């Protein structure tokens, strides 16, 4: 079966810098694919390249069987890719409600149902419904960012380091939410927290210096101490 998302030897330049120098990667429908790699390896850039925020200068990105390499960001997003950026990207002068509404580009029966699901998942959001996004705490922002991506009706969700800077108890919540979202969409997750990554990930892709160095089933990586030590500095 053709994977939902496929990157073939993708290169990305930002200004004069050659950041991605050959990233290949596949995400199969219904699975959680985790991107691993040390700081500065190019994980965030990989996600941005999928969305066309930093367009690829070489190679090919295909989504759902169509080539999206040269498409513009809004079109890629509309074709069914949601994004939870590293910095969450909450609109600070819009309320939580307005943030959610902006994300629901078209309000349909289905998005409204998803909104209900997401409010069950993050009941806190209801408490802050009328509060400005800028006044939320880090954890609340993360929840809002995930909820926002979820109601967008995407077939694929790109989530960048959702556990960053959060207290363990909130990380637990975020993980629960990802497990729940997994029932509805395919997920590509960037995660440094290996414990978390190995718990929710089905597959892994190791990126180092802008290149894919290894990929496979998560279960295999968990047992491969050498690989973990070499590229993640753990194990």
């Amino acid at each position, binding site marked *: 079966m053709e994977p939902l998302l496929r990157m073939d030897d993708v290169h990305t330049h930002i200004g004069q810098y050659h950041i991605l120098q050959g990233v290949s990667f596949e995400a199969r429908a219904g699975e959680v694919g985790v991107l691993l790699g040390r700081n500065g390896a190019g994980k965030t850039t990989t996600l941005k390249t999928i*969305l066309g*925020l930093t367009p690829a200068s070489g190679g090919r990105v295909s989504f759902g069987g169509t080539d999206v390499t040269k498409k*513009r*960001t*809004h079109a890629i*997003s*509309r074709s069914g890719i949601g*994004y939870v*950026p590293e910095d969450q*990207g909450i*609109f*600070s*002068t*819009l*309320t939580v409600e*307005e943030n959610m*509404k*902006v*994300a629901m*580009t078209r309000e349909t029966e289905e998005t409204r149902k998803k909104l209900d699901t997401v409010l069950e998942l993050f009941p*806190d959001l209801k*408490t802050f419904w*009328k*509060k400005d996004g800028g*006044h939320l*705490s880090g*954890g*609340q922002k993360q929840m809002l960012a995930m909820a*926002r991506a979820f109601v*967008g009706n995407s077939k694929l969700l790109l989530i960048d380091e959702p556990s960053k800077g959060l*207290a363990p*108890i*909130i990380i637990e919540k975020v993980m629960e939410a990802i497990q729940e979202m997994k029932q509805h969409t395919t997920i590509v997750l960037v995660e440094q927290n290996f414990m978390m990554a190995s718990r929710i990930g089905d597959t892994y892709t190791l990126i180092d210096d802008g290149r894919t160095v290894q990929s496979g089933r998560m279960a295999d990586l968990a047992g491969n101490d050498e690989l973990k030590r070499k590229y993640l500095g753990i194990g």
Partner: protein
Amino acid sequence: MKKPMNWSKISLIIAAVLLAAIPFVSDSRTWLILLTQIFIFSILAMSYDVLLGYAGMVSFGHAMFFGIGAYTTAVLLDRFEPTLLVFSLSIAAGMLIAGIISFFVGLLTLRLKDHFFAMLTLALSGLFLVLAEKWRSVTNGNDGFTFSAPDVFRDRAVFYLTVLALLVVVYFALRRFTNSPLGRVLIAVRENEQRTKALGYRTLAYKVIASVVAGVTASLAGSLYVVSLRFVNTSVMAMDVTLDALLMTIIGGVGTLIGPIIGAGIIELAQHYLSDLAGEYPLFERWIIFFGILYILAVIFFPTGIAGFFKSLFSRRRRPEADAPPLEPAKPEVPR
């Protein structure tokens, strides 16, 4: 943004009714003229705020749209019979031209980021100023020309009421616009354009819409302005017009519609009184210096403008639940 504030709608309507009563209870010509001027600049400042406060686009060329409306109305009233019909058509024609030009100006944001866009609008409006100076057969150059307004406007009160009515209409129309889903996306674009694109919005289209709405509204203000003077010259295209709009918006409060109206009132009143004082104390001839001081004070004490200041006062008192404690546990304390 649009917290449930129906009291604001009601108090605005009351204010409008009170203002409408003024010509019936007072016969001060000076006040009528001054208030008319304030209303006209309120429309201009609100239009500028659609760009600055909502879409986050900094333009230094807003005067060109004001000038387009001004010249279209002046020329048409001069060339044809000064009837109400010609007056209305001239407003529509001005808006149409301003709409087309602001459409292309909006498109420029595709290639030009922030300050480059601001510089380009400055250059463009400079071009329009030169055009107004050189196209003497139509504009009579720097000297400008006088023309007749429709007869009904001979009565200052009628014109005053007309402008007030238009101000109310524009205010509620823009309020609808900025509170609509579209207005929400504009705010999102201002805050984080990349993020808005990633949510699936073609942000350029939204910026173009903002540019057109602002341009068309500014043109209306220009049309009204020249009719109030029955005279037009190149000053309607000058940088001062843009600076006035900028100052009114910032002092009154960016990102609210009532702010620019308050700002227009303050600036126009200050201009009026300071130039009166200048007759007695030459020091006040440099009233522009006082604007500088006013501006600095405003930025220090009311960084969100006067409207923003009152809004935050109000919301602090009214929405205690907004300050409810966060639901997550506090960070573990480091034992000492």
